[in-house]
C-alpha cells in the first residue's frame, strides 16, 4: 500500500483524497439524512394529519352547529378530494360520515418509501363550539405525502450536491492546474540545475500561491547564488590558472601519494615533461633533485613534507635533472595542501630556476666591485683591497705598500668640448693605458691593483713597493698619459695627470690613506700639475690639506653637537650716507671652546659638497633670529656657495623660509663669490633673477680676484660689488691697489652699483676709500665680528 501510494502523483493523491472525503461525506450524510428524514418525516406526517383534522373540523363546524349533516358530508368529500388526507370519519350521536380520498399517485419510488419507512398516521380531532361537542373526526394521512416532499427535497439536495461537486471539481482542477504547473516548473528548474543547465527566473503561472512563489524565489536565489559561485570559481580558476601560467616558477601539484596532478607551463619547460604525460607519475620521476656538490639524488622535499606532514619546507639549493639530462640549478620549496576540514589533499612543489639569478648575482658582484665604464675595480674594491693590505701589514710589518691617487688634468676640457661620451671613451683608453704600464709582480707577489675612484680619478695600489719605486711608477704613468693623444671630431687632446702617493702604515685606516694620497695629489696640482708628490707628515701645505679632510669628518659631529655659531660684522657707509648693515659669518667652536677660523672648514665643505647644507643652516638660523628679534631692523648679507646656487631646490627653500619666518625679502642680501658664479653661470643667473624678483638684493663678492669679473658684472645685474680684500688690505701703501680699487669704484658708480671694501683694518685705508668714493667699508677697524645673541637656546 505504501509503495502504491508512493507512486501516486500529487494530482492523483489530491483527487483520491477529495473523492474519498466526498464519498464518506455522502455516505455519512445519507445515513444521517435518512435517520433525520425518518424522524422529521414522522413528525411532519403527524403534524400534517393533525392539521388536516383541525382544518376539517373547522370546515365542518358550522354545518354541524346548524345540524346540516348533508352539508357536512359534502364538505368532507370535498376535503378528501383535495388529497389532504387518505380517509376521514365523523362520528356524532351514532351518526357516521366517512370520506375517502381518491387513490394517490406517489411521486417517490417504492424503494425510497421502503428506505424511509414512514407509516400511515391517524389523527383525531373533536369538534366543540362553546363547550358543546358536535362530533369527533378521525382521519389518516398516507406517508407518501411526506415521502414525496422528502423525495423532492432529496432531488434538490442531490442537484445542489452535484452542482457543488462540479464546482468543486472545476475549482480543484484549476487549483491543481495552477499549483502543479508551478510545481512542474520548479521541478524542471531543479532538474535543469541538477543537470548543470540552470535557467534563471522560474515563470510561475498567474495566481500561483505564495508558497510556490516563495519556493520559486528560493530556487531562483539558490540558482543565482550557485551561478555566482560558479562564475566566481571560474574566475578564481582562471585567475589561478593565469597566475600559475604567468609565474616563472615551476609549480607541481601532487596528490597525497606524491603523484603529479598538475604542472604549470613553467614546470613543463623546466622539467621537459608534458603535463599530460606527467600526470600520475611519481614526483621523484618528474622532478628528480640531486645534490649540487656530489651530484647524488637527495631526499625529495615534497615527499618529505608528505611523509612528515610538516606544513612546508624550504631546502634551498639543488639541481634538477631533466629528461634530457640537463642539470638546472633550482631553489625549491614544498608545502602541504589541506582541505577545509584539515584532511591531507596533496602537496605542491615550487621550483625556481636559479640559473639566471646566479648569473645575475655574479654580475652584480662584479658590478659591485668594478667600474662599469672601464672595467677596473671601483672605489669600493680598491678600499677593500687597501683595508686588506693594511691588515696584512699588522702581521707583516716589514712589507711596504704604496697607494697612488691619480687625477687627470684637462679632462674637463674634453668632457665640455666633446661631450660625456667622448669623456667616457677617453677614460676607458686611459684606464687601458695605465693597466698596460703596470709592472709584473714577482712570482709569489701580489699584482698591483688599478681602480677607478670616480670621475677622472684613479687609484693604484702597489704591493711590496718602496717610496722611490712608487714615485717612479707614478711618474711613468704620468708620462704615458701625457704621451697619449686623444682624437675626436678632428681635434686632438693631450691630457696630463697629477699623482699623490701615500705609503700604507699599519694601524691606520683606509680613509687616512686615501686622504693623504688625495692631499698629496692636490699638492702636486698646486705645484704645477703633471707631477707626483709623496705625502709627508711635515709638509705644511699637505697638512692644511689634511685639515680640510679632517673637517669632513667633523662636520656632522659639529652639527650634532651644535658647535656652529652665527656671528656678524657691521658694514658701514664710508661717507655717512646710506644705512649700515651686517654680513653674517659662520664660526665653528672647537672642543676647547675656542672659536676658530672657518676658512679650512668652508674650503672643505665646498670641495666635498657640504656647502649647501651649511648655507641652509645659516639661512634658517638667521631667519629664526630675525623672527625672534623684531627690534633688530637691520639688513643682513648672507654668503652662498656656488654649489648652493646650483641647487634648483634652494630657491624654493629661500621662498619657503622667508614666508615661514615672516622675513621681508628686502632685508636680505645674498653674496656670491666670483668662483661661485663661474661654477655654474646659468644657475647663478637663474638664482639671481629669482632673488631679485623676490625682492632680495645680490652682491658680487671678492670682485676683482678673477680675470673675467667685468664680463660677469655685465650680465649679472648685481646691486652691490664687494671689492676683494687683497686690493684693500694694503690700499694705503700700494698705489696699484689704489688704482684698481678706484677703477672698480668708478665702474660701480657708472653702473649704479654700490661698492663695498672689506679688510679695512686702519683709518688710513678708510680715508683712502672715502677719497676714492667707495660706498661701504667693512673690517676690524670699523667693527669687530660679534656673535648673534639668541633668545632661546638652539633657536
Amino acid at each position, binding site marked *: 500500500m505504501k509503495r502504491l501510494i508512493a507512486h501516486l502523483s500529487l494530482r492523483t493523491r489530491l483527487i483520491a483524497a477529495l473523492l474519498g472525503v466526498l464519498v464518506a461525506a455522502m455516505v455519512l450524510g445519507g445515513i444521517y439524512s435518512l435517520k433525520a428524514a425518518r424522524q422529521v418525516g414522522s413528525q411532519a406526517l403527524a403534524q400534517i394529519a393533525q392539521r388536516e383534522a383541525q382544518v376539517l373540523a373547522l370546515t365542518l*363546524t*358550522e354545518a354541524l*352547529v*346548524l*345540524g346540516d349533516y348533508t352539508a357536512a358530508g359534502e364538505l368532507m368529500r370535498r376535503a378528501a378530494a383535495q388529497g389532504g388526507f387518505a380517509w376521514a370519519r365523523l362520528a356524532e350521536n351514532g351518526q357516521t360520515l366517512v370520506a375517502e380520498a381518491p387513490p394517490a399517485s406517489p411521486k417517490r419510488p417504492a424503494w425510497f418509501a421502503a428506505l424511509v419507512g414512514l407509516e400511515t398516521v391517524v389523527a383525531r380531532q373533536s369538534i366543540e*363550539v*362553546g*363547550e*358543546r361537542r358536535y362530533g369527533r373526526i378521525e382521519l389518516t394521512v398516507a406517508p407518501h405525502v411526506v415521502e414525496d416532499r422528502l423525495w423532492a427535497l432529496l432531488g434538490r439536495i442531490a442537484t445542489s450536491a452535484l452542482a457543488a461537486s462540479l464546482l468543486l471539481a472545476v475549482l480543484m482542477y484549476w487549483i491543481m492546474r495552477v499549483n502543479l504547473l508551478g510545481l512542474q516548473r520548479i521541478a524542471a528548474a531543479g532538474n535543469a540545475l541538477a543537470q548543470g543547465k540552470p535557467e534563471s527566473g522560474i515563470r510561475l503561472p498567474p495566481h500561483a500561491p505564495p508558497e510556490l512563489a516563495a519556493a520559486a524565489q528560493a530556487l531562483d536565489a539558490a540558482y543565482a547564488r550557485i551561478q555566482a559561485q560558479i562564475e566566481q570559481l571560474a574566475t578564481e580558476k582562471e585567475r589561478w590558472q593565469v597566475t600559475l601560467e604567468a609565474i616563472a616558477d615551476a609549480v607541481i601539484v601532487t596528490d597525497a601519494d606524491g603523484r603529479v596532478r598538475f604542472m604549470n607551463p613553467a614546470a613543463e619547460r623546466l622539467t621537459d615533461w608534458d603535463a599530460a604525460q606527467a600526470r600520475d607519475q611519481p614526483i621523484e620521476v618528474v622532478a628528480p633533485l640531486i645534490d649540487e656538490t656530489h651530484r647524488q639524488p637527495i631526499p625529495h622535499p615534497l615527499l618529505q613534507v608528505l611523509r612528515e606532514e610538516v606544513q612546508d619546507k624550504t631546502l634551498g639549493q639543488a639541481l634538477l635533472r631533466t629528461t634530457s639530462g640537463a642539470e638546472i640549478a633550482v631553489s625549491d620549496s614544498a608545502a602541504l595542501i589541506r582541505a577545509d576540514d584539515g584532511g591531507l589533499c596533496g602537496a605542491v612543489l615550487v621550483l625556481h630556476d636559479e640559473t639566471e639569478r646566479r648569473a645575475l648575482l655574479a654580475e652584480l658582484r662584479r658590478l659591485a666591485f668594478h667600474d662599469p665604464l672601464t672595467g677596473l675595480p671601483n672605489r669600493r674594491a680598491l678600499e677593500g683591497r687597501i683595508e686588506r693590505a693594511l691588515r696584512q701589514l699588522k702581521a707583516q710589518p716589514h712589507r711596504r705598500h704604496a697607494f697612488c691617487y691619480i687625477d687627470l688634468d684637462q679632462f674637463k676640457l674634453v668632457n665640455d668640448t666633446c661631450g660625456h661620451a667622448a669623456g667616457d671613451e677617453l677614460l676607458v683608453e686611459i684606464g687601458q693605458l695605465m693597466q698596460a704600464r703596470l709592472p709584473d709582480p714577482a712570482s709569489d707577489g701580489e699584482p698591483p691593483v688599478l681602480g677607478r675612484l670616480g670621475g677622472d680619478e684613479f687609484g693604484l695600489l702597489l704591493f711590496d713597493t718602496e717610496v722611490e719605486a712608487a714615485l717612479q711608477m707614478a711618474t711613468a704613468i704620468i708620462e704615458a698619459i701625457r704621451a697619449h693623444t686623444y682624437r675626436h671630431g678632428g681635434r686632438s687632446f693631450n691630457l696630463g695627470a697629477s699623482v699623490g702617493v701615500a705609503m700604507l702604515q699599519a694601524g691606520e685606516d683606509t680613509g687616512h690613506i686615501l686622504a693623504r694620497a688625495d692631499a698629496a695629489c692636490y699638492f702636486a696640482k698646486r705645484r704645477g700639475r703633471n707631477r707626483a708628490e709623496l705625502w709627508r707628515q711635515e709638509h705644511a701645505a699637505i697638512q692644511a690639506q689634511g685639515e680640510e679632510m679632517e673637517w669632513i669628518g667633523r662636520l656632522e659631529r659639529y652639527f650634532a653637537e651644535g658647535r656652529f655659531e652665527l656671528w656678524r660684522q657691521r658694514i658701514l657707509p664710508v661717507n655717512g650716507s646710506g644705512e649700515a648693515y651686517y654680513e653674517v659669518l659662520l664660526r665653528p667652536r672647537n672642543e676647547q671652546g675656542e672659536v676658530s677660523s672657518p676658512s679650512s672648514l668652508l674650503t672643505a665643505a665646498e670641495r666635498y659638497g657640504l656647502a649647501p647644507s651649511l648655507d641652509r643652516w645659516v639661512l634658517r638660523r638667521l631667519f629664526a633670529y630675525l623672527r625672534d628679534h623684531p627690534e633688530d631692523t637691520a639688513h643682513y648679507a648672507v654668503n652662498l656657495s656656488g654649489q648652493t646656487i646650483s641647487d634648483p631646490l634652494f630657491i624654493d627653500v629661500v621662498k619657503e623660509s622667508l614666508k615661514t619666518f615672516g622675513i621681508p625679502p628686502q632685508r636680505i642680501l645674498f653674496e656670491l663669490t666670483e668662483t661661485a658664479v663661474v661654477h655654474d653661470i646659468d644657475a647663478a643667473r637663474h638664482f639671481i633673477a629669482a632673488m631679485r624678483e623676490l625682492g632680495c638684493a645680490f652682491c658680487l663678492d671678492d670682485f676683482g680676484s678673477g680675470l673675467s669679473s667685468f664680463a660677469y658684472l655685465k650680465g649679472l645685474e648685481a646691486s652691490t660689488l664687494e671689492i676683494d680684500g687683497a686690493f684693500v688690505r694694503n690700499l694705503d701703501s700700494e698705489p696699484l691697489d689704489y688704482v684698481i680699487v678706484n677703477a672698480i669704484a668708478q665702474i660701480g658708480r657708472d653702473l649704479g652699483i654700490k661698492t663695498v671694501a672689506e679688510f679695512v683694518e686702519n683709518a688710513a685705508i678708510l680715508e683712502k676709500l672715502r677719497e676714492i668714493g667707495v660706498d661701504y667699508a667693512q673690517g676690524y677697524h670699523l667693527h669687530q665680528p660679534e656673535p648673534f645673541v639668541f633668545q632661546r637656546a638652539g633657536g
Partner: protein
Amino acid sequence: MIRRLALFLLALCVAPPLLAWQTGGPYPFGVLNHRSVTLTAEYWNPILAWVSARSGVPLTLKIARTANETTDMAVRGELAFVYTNHLFTPQRDRLGFTVIARQEGEGIRGQVVVPAASPITRLEDLAGQAVAFANPYGFTGYFVPYDALLKAGIEVQPVLAGSQEAAMGLLRHGKVAAAGVNHQVIADYSRREGFAYRVLWESQPYYDLAVMAHPTVPAAARAAVRAALLAMKTDPQGQRVLAEAAARLKLPVPRGFVAASDRDYDAYRRFFQQTRVPLEGQ
C-alpha cells in the same frame, strides 16, 4: 264505535305532529343570529349548558344559517325557546310565543350611520343613495331605520346584506352610502373591527331581544328556564359563563338576563301597526 274509531283516525290524520321536546328530546333553543353561526354557537352553547344544568330542562341550540331562517324555524314551530324580536309582527304575534325574559341592557335603537369620513351629514343627503340593511326581518337593522327614511320622504335604494354585520361590511368597504343598524351591534362591530362611523339618525329605545317560549312548552319547564336565566347573573358560575361568553364576542361587559313580559314589547307591536315599511306576510 266505528264512529269513534273513525274520529280518532281522523284526529290522527289532522293533528299536528309531535314536537321534539314533546317526545322527550331536548328543548330546541333558537337564537336570532346577528353574528356568524359559529360565533353564535360559541356564545350561546355555554349559556344553554349552564341553564340546562341549572333548570334541569335540557336545552339545545338550534339556529339556522340566517336570522330569517331561524325566524322561519320558529314560525314553523321547530323551536321551544327562541331569543328574538322578530315575533312581534301582527302575523307572528299570533303564534303564541310568550316573553319569559330579556337580555339586560338599556335597550336597542335603530340607527342610520355613515363612515366617519363620509361627506354625508344629513338623511336628506341619502336620497337616491344605496343604503344597506340586514334583512327584511330585522327590527332595528331594517324596519326602524327604513321606516324613518320612508316617513322622512327620503327615497333610497335599500340593499339587504343578510345580516347586520354584513351590512356594516358593505358600509365599511364603500359599497353603500349608509346603513340601517342596531346601535348595539354596530358599536360592538366598531370596537372589534376598529371601524369609525357617524350616526345620522337614531330611533327611540326598544327592549333588546326577548327570550320567548313556545306555547306548547310546559309551564314548569318554562318557569325553570326563566328562573335559571334570571339567576345567571347572580350565580358565580353563571357569571363566569356569561363573562367567558362575552369575552368570546369581545363585549365590553357581560350581559345577563332580566325578567320581562309580553307587555314590555308593546312598543314593537305599535311600531308594526304604524310602519310604512311593507310587512309582506310577516
